[in-house]
Structure formats: C-alpha cells, structure tokens
C-alpha cells in the first residue's frame, strides 16, 4: 500500500514534537499528529486539550475536543477557564499545534469568515482557542492541506496571529511566544525566514515538486536555496498511524 500525502503530512508533523514537549492540541490533523508522536518517538509528550484534559493519552483519536476518551486517559481534567488561565496564559505550553482554514505568507490564520465580516461568503466556525494559543504558546506548529483556497495572498480576516506583517512585528507587539515555526502541509514544510518571517519552502515530501507547491500557493512562494526532502515515513511510523486511524474508525465510524 502506497503512502498517501496526508500520511506523510501527519508523520512529518508528528516528528516536530520532541519527547517531553507540552503541547496544546487542536482537534483534527493536529490531534492526529500529536498522538502519533506520543505513540512513536515521543511517549512522554504531554497533550493538553482546551476542554480540560491534561496529559491525555487517547487510544483512538477524539472526534471532538471533549471526547470522554480524553478525560479518562488524562492525568487530570481541569476546567476550561483553568486551561486558558493557568496553563496557556500562565506560560506552561511549549507548542501550540493548530489547524487552519486559511493562512497567509506570514502564517497569520483565518478561521472566521471568507468575504466581508458582516455579510460573509462563507461563515467559518470562528476563533476557538487559537488567538491566545497563537499568542502565548512557546511556539506554534500549523498543519493543513496545501491548496490555493487555504494558502491565500490576503486573508479576509486575521483570526489568530502569525508573524503579522513579518520582520520583528511579533516582538514589537510584545507577544509572549515565538509564533509559528513551521507549517506542515501534504506537499512539504514551510518555515519562516529568520529575518523577514515570510514562509519559505524548506522541505518537500517525497514525490512532491517545487512547482506543485508554488501552484498550490496563492502568493509567489519563496523557496529555500536548498530544499530538503522530507524523510519518507518509516514503516513503524506508518504502522502506528494506520493502526491509530483503524482503531479510530472502528470506534467512531468512517468519518472520523
């Protein structure tokens, strides 16, 4: 069975988490990647969900941010205000792991509306925990599929802050965290330029091309002089991921 781009993306994202990292996990792709990390190279990664579980160790992926599986496998469950106050704002989170509907070249995130705010073309779910995760987590990883609908030149709405308009804008805004340090897609990995903070293609997944990545990006994508090739998923990583997805589908039904 061939490796799908989504699998490569998930494995690449999982690898970004070091063992022992305290990670504030968004639902969906981030949750899949964070749990894969926990089940492979980072058994002591600490997963915190905004619904309250601290140190969740789900054996199947949650379909929602507050699944019972998160509560019963956690070290403890605190209230949602405590999560945002003592743990996130309190500076205890190493990595915020987010998805996004859209991002721009400075990794600012839109999850609010497409089109005019008061009369939107598409009404998205909204901010959730992301604005403060993006501000206060030590650093932020973003995982989303690479296409022109998602990678846009100008966001209709900035829900959650990335690097603002680049350079030292974050530091000037006195944001506590470092902001996005990588965007992992199904084509490759983008990292902010150390000076301009513009997202730069620094790694391509096996089989993907620079042209594909540029075509899937709604602005002229910067490409690093030396683009690495993401090491292909190892058999044990794939096995762990597929077993996780299989368990999840058995528990929730196909659409999870």
């Amino acid at each position, binding site marked *: 069975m061939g490796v799908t781009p989504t699998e490569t993306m998930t494995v690449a994202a999982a690898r970004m988490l070091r063992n022992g990292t305290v990670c504030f996990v968004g*639902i*969906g792709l981030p949750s899949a990647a964070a749990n894969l990390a926990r089940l492979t190279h980072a058994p002591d990664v600490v997963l915190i969900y*905004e*619904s*309250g*579980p601290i140190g969740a160790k789900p054996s199947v992926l*949650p*379909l*929602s*941010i*507050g*699944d*019972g599986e998160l*509560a*019963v496998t956690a070290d403890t*469950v*605190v*209230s*949602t*205000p405590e*999560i*945002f*106050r003592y743990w*996130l*704002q309190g500076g205890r989170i190493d990595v915020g792991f987010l998805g996004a509907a859209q991002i721009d070249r400075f990794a*600012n995130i839109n999850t*609010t509306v497409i089109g005019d*705010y008061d*009369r*939107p*073309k*598409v*009404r998205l*779910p*909204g*901010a*959730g*925990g*992301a*604005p*403060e995760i*993006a*501000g*206060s987590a030590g650093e932020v990883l973003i995982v989303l599929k690479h296409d022109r609908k998602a990678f846009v030149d100008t966001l209709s*709405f*900035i*829900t*959650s*802050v*990335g690097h*603002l308009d680049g350079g030292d804008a*974050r530091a000037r*805004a*006195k*944001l*506590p965290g470092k902001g996005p340090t990588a965007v992992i897609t199904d084509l490759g990995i983008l990292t902010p330029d150390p000076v301009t903070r513009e997202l730069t293609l620094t790694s391509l997944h096996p089989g993907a091309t620079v042209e594909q990545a540029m075509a899937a990006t709604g602005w002229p994508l910067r490409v690093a002089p030396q683009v690495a090739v993401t090491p292909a998923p190892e058999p044990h990583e794939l096995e762990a991921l597929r077993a996780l997805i299989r368990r999840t589908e058995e528990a*929730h*039904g196909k*659409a*999870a």
Partner: protein
Amino acid sequence: MAEIMSLREAIGTFVRDGDHLAAEGFTHLIPFAAGHELIRQGKRDLTVYRMTPDIIYDQLIGMGCVRKMVFSWGGNPGVGSLHRFRDSIERDWPHRIEIEERSHADMANAYVAGASGLPFAILRGYVGSDLPKHSDRIRFIACPFTGEELAAVPAIKLDVAIIHAQQADRRGNVLLWGILGVQKEAVMAASRAVITVEEIVDELRPAPNACVLPRWVVSAVCHEPGGAFPSYAQGYYERDNRFYLAWDPIARTRETFLAWMQRHVLDTASFAEFRRVHATTAREAA
C-alpha cells in the same frame, strides 16, 4: 433553592422570552433535552451564550428562538458547519441573528468574571487578531503597576444557565465530573439555574474537591436520563457520533430541517418521546 420538577415546568418557570441564557457544555454533558424544551415552548428573543455552540444551538437558531449569539467556536464538532447558523448569517433565514464573536480564552475569562461578581475580566489576548475590530466590547487597558496593555472584556452575566449533570440528590444538590468546561462558571454567573441530571440518588458520594453545585445555587433539578444525548455523560453513556454525522444533511436545507424538527421535537411531548421517535427514524434511515 433547588426544586425537583419536570423539565417542562422548569423551562416554563425559569426561562423567559428575552433572557440572556447559556446552555453550556464542552462536548460532554450538553443539555439537549433542555434545548428541545426551549424549542417546544417557543421561547423567543433569547441572547444565547456558548463557547462551542453546536447542534442544539443550530436547532434554536433555525427555529427562530435566538436574537443574538455570543460565542467563540460554532460548528458541528468533527463534522463541519452549523448550516442553520450559516443560513441565518449568510441568508437571513429565519431571521438574521446578531452575533458577538469572541475567543475561547475571552469567554472562559468572561464567565469567570461573571461567576466572581466582577464587571469585567482581563486577559493577555487578541493581539494581532481582527476580532477586536468587530466588537466594541473588547478593549485594552494598562496594568496599573507595569503599564502592560491587556485585553479587557465584559463579564458574562446570565439570567439563566442550563446544564446537564450526572447526579443530584433528593434535596437538589448536583454532582458532575469529567470534562467540566465552563458549566460551574455559567451556573455561578446566572440568576437562575436549571439542571437536568442522569440520575437522582439518595446520597451523593462526591470525591474530595469534586464539582458539586449546592442546591441553594440551583433553581430546578429535572430528572432526564439520557438528556445529554447525542453528546455523552461520563459514566453513563458514550457520544453518539452517528447522530452528529446524520445531522449534517438534515440541517443543510430548510425543508429537511423543518420536517425533522416537526417530527422529532414539536410533535413529541418530552425528550423520552423524542428518543423513541428518533430510534424509529434512525432505523428507517439506516
């Protein structure tokens, strides 16, 4: 002081048209039974609060109960959009609800401020976000000691909070556990509180430091076993993920939505009856 009564009586007595109301729940313990009863009783002009409005808020919006919604994430978790919410915002059906949009951290802090009897909350948030541009209720103030600028948001003060819990005793003391979300804060921020429970027991046996809501902060306790369906109640039943998936096509069109609501909510007298009808229609659909 808590009285044990039917859900119909509790909603009739303690929820008024125009109320500021939160039916809170963070995936866990979502008060669906109470939400249906609001719809059955045709409550109107509600200002509804919730961090994570989901299907039950979609139903309230689609049935015209809502004037304004204050929220931070509106969706069908793990599935997609709230179609009735979008239809209201995007195409004014059945009317355009007003929205006040916040972040989770903001709402969580605003509930805490409401529970704490404070007029506002402070948080380090919103920097770089466009959300403050669309609200005059997100302001920035300076720390009187350090000068640091912080976001200030008004407290959430409710007329009525509605939550679902696992247990109450016969005097109306309530116990809940597992994912607690902001339910305690919502009750403490409210003038009135209606709480549906899975079970009424002779004696609560809370663990030390458990989340107990004493009966004197509760208006009504209603015995509604399964009342969080299709969400879950830890220790009682699991989330019915199929329901959330099945809701998507139902809510997509006005016609399928209205037909479903008529058959399942308006034509049923109770949540128990809804569960029976739903069991039948779900079998037919399968």
